[in-house]
């Protein structure tokens, strides 16, 4: 392994998030290595999504710090965190329902001159970018098998389609790290494997780091490099997929339930 | 000065009754009720009609409670409940209350026109204070509005905290889907909250002509103070409403009158703007109301 691949991409130190008296996330420390595919597992309600929400600025942490590429991004608003190069998807798909599938992807694009008030009036100044982005969006739509629905309203997609749309938007953002919240929940196994192999491919080709929350370990584990297991707001174990599968604590709280 | 203070307390009590309903509805239905003004105006015309027919206008508090409660129930069953069933957004529900307010404004004006032509009286200037009684130097409206506020607050507290219906209502406020799952008839509980809120507004409305000159557009003038009182108290806490009502009520009467002595009389012409400015400042700086500050400590 090259040294750069050992570099820490995302680091949290003692992240804590409370809601009233309930501690949803309790002093969580995780390190996500650059160009890794890191899995975050744990039973429902164990704080995984809250952790992600706290990392990506939806919530402000009560304690602790988040570093992305060595920069402290604790408490920054979500749009600033996006600008830093960290993008996430949502467990409950959050499509822009009345926009077309294609537009949903285009919204995620970075630094579009047509979105600026000063230049939006001059179509010529942004139409080329728009066309390039459309081509790029189509590549992702093809990978995700959504290309035939490109001109439909996003609300017409089924649950699996919406999941894929979430991923498509994240990819479109040119992020250096993407956090996927249950990307293959409700997706058929063949497509699920397909999506994970594309994730691996994107990691290899573009060097994108992935952190993935997933329940379907039968599929997810074999594609990941490192795993964190959470329970009741705390990290209870971490290691390679093989280590995690054999871990007693993980087996009792998580695998035992499946 | 004492007179201003007493007048301020009366106004604050009335404002509190109105704000109480707004907060209650916001807690149960999650919608700011822009039709609250109409509920108040129906109260005004209930006691006015009673006075015209030769009854004691204070009977209007009881009848006004029922009339405005029913007006609120109609809004709930005709507009809000069908929309809620369709899972309409909060925005659509707000629009529905605004629409209902317009509709009721038309109806109350037609009623005022009708009174005017039938009884040959100026039904657009409703003022009943001359008919009010006095007791130990206090105006009747002051005694009745403050004591009714206290009594109704106590009744509301008992209803919410000491009865099965109240427990169900509180469950609906906390988590409607969970309440539904536990076999509570959410729709019925919401309807109850609309009846209560409409009724409280009706009581306030019925007393209003004893306090000030009113007409069909009085509701429109009061909608900002009502919301201001409710938000100032904190929309998340029912008992915040009277607190907000008194802060705002005293500010618009006592404070403004004191200021007009200090700064100059011209400030009085701007006194109508106090609730608007308080409302906006509150929303921007303490959107969860004064109660949120008190509870934090």
């Amino acid at each position, binding site marked *: 392994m090259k040294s750069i691949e050992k570099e820490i991409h995302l680091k949290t130190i003692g992240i804590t998030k409370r809601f009233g008296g309930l501690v949803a996330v309790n002093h969580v420390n995780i390190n996500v290595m650059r160009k890794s595919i890191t899995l975050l597992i744990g039973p429902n309600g164990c704080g995984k999504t809250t952790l992600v929400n706290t990392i*990506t600025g939806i919530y402000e942490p009560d304690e602790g710090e988040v570093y992305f590429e060595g920069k402290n991004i604790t408490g920054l608003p*979500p*749009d600033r965190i996006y*600008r830093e190069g960290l*993008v996430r998807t*949502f467990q409950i798909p959050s*499509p*822009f*329902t*009345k*926009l*077309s599938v*294609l*537009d949903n992807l285009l*919204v995620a694009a970075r630094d579009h001159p*047509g*979105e*600026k008030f000063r230049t*939006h009036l001059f*179509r010529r100044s942004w139409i080329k970018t728009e066309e390039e982005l*459309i081509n790029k969006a*189509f590549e992702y739509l093809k990978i995700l098998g959504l290309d035939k629905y*490109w*001109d*439909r*309203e996003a609300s017409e997609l089924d649950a699996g389609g919406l999941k894929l749309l979430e991923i498509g*938007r994240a990819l479109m953002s040119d992020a250096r790290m993407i956090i996927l919240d249950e990307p293959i929940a409700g997706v058929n196994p063949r497509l699920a494997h397909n999506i994970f192999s594309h994730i691996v491919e994107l990691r290899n080709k573009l060097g994108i780091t992935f952190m993935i929350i997933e329940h379907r370990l039968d599929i997810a584990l074999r594609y990941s490099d490192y795993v964190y297991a959470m329970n009741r707001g705390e990290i209870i174990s971490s290691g390679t997929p093989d280590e995690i599968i054999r871990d007693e604590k993980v087996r009792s709280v998580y695998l035992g339930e499946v | 000065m004492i007179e201003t203070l007493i007048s301020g307390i009366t106004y604050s009590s009335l404002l509190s009754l109105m704000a109480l309903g707004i907060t209650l509805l916001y807690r149960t239905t999650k919608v*700011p009720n822009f039709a609250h003004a109409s509920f108040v105006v129906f109260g005004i015309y209930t006691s006015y009609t009673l006075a015209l027919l030769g009854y004691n206008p204070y009977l209007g508090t009881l009848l006004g409670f029922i009339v405005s409660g029913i007006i609120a129930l109609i809004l709930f069953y005709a*507009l809000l409940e*069908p*929309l809620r069933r*369709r899972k309409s957004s909060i*925005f*659509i529900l*707000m629009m*529905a209350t605004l*629409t209902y307010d*317009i*509709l009721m*404004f*038309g*109806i109350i*004006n037609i009623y005022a*026109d009708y009174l005017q*032509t039938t009884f040959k009286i100026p039904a657009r200037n409703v003022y009943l204070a001359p008919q009010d009684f006095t007791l130990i130097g206090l105006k009747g409206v002051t005694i009745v509005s403050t004591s009714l506020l206290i009594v109704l607050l106590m009744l509301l507290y008992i209803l919410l905290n000491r009865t099965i219906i109240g427990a169900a209502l509180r469950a609906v406020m906390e988590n409607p889907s969970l309440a539904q799952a536990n076999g509570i008839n959410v729709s019925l509980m919401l309807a109850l909250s609309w009846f209560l809120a409409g009724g409280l507004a009706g009581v306030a409305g019925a007393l209003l002509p004893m306090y000030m000159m009113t007409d069909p557009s009085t509701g429109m003038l009061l*909608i*900002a103070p009502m*919301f*201001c009182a409710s*938000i100032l108290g904190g929309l998340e806490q029912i008992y915040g409403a009277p607190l907000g009502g008194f802060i705002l009520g005293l500010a618009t009467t006592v404070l403004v009158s004191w200021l007009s002595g200090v700064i100059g009389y011209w400030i009085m*012409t*701007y006194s*109508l*703007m106090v*609730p608007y400015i308080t*409302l*906006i400042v509150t*929303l*921007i700086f303490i*959107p969860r109301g004064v109660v949120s500050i008190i509870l934090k400590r």
Partner: protein
Amino acid sequence: MFDVIILFITDLLAFFGIYLMLNTALNIERGYAGIPNFGLLFSYAGGAYITGHLTAKIAILLTGAKVEADPITQPVSALMVLNPILASNPLISITLLIIILLIGASFGALLGLIQLGPAIRLREDYLAITLLALGEVMNYIAIAYKPFINGSLGVQVPDVFSWIGSRYRFYLATGIILLIAFILYIYAEFLGRTPLGRAMKAIRENEIAAVSLGKSLTRYRAIAMIIGSAFTGVAGSLWTLYSGAITPTLQRFDWTFLPWLMIFLGGIGNNLGVALGTFIFVLINRLIIFNKHLLAGVLPFDIVWFDYISLGLIMGLILIYRPQGILPEKPYIPKNIRRKIVVSRSQE
């Protein structure tokens, strides 16, 4: 008879034009950016009142006329001097018109900025309350602060359209209103097709997803609010110039509720739908008002209240049965892009 019909059509088109501007503005604010602007009256009345306040003053500056009377408190004597000069001088009249419209737009935009404070921070429901409350403030200011537009008496403004001859004055005014409404409409339609409009719609559809994809809520709401309020300000200006006078009596019903009703009727988010809704509504409304005298003796109350009730009922029905309007919003895909994509897909 012919004159009556022409009068009816002129009046109809003027109202259509003014409402089209307001509704297009509302469509940008709510239809695109999702801001529940229940305070449309704020910038509309602002535009109307600032025009009442400034038109005569600017006319004095432009014409260099010697006017002894204060144009706010003694408008009649001021206008006796100003109107003849404007009537004989089209160039100055047009310059005055343009300046006033620019002022209306800027003042509207400024008021939009004030509304923005809450618009950025608050949740939809709290925001609606604040904007509704703000909408009422402008009338209080105009009534309380006498030097603005002479308190509740209001002001008359110089006539910038009379140079064409008093016979054609209303036609010209209506023509200009329609022209400006058309320009604003075209702009709104264009905006909806730009990536800027798309970003606004994304925020409307899902704030959290949009902000997580780098779209600053503040920025895009600000842009929508400022554009919308500038439009509204222009509409207010034109209303004052068209009527020739203004009093601080602009009502929430006419200038906030009705625009909302029209955009719901036509289809929120769809400009063509909004225009259609506006036309249908104004046509029916004007027909009723034009024939109001037929009902005057029949009903025991003023017909205007019947307006409130019928419109309230219509709005209720729309909300329940067709909240998407006559022409619902559709995703926009430029024709050339669609063609390109279809061709490239068929080659594979």
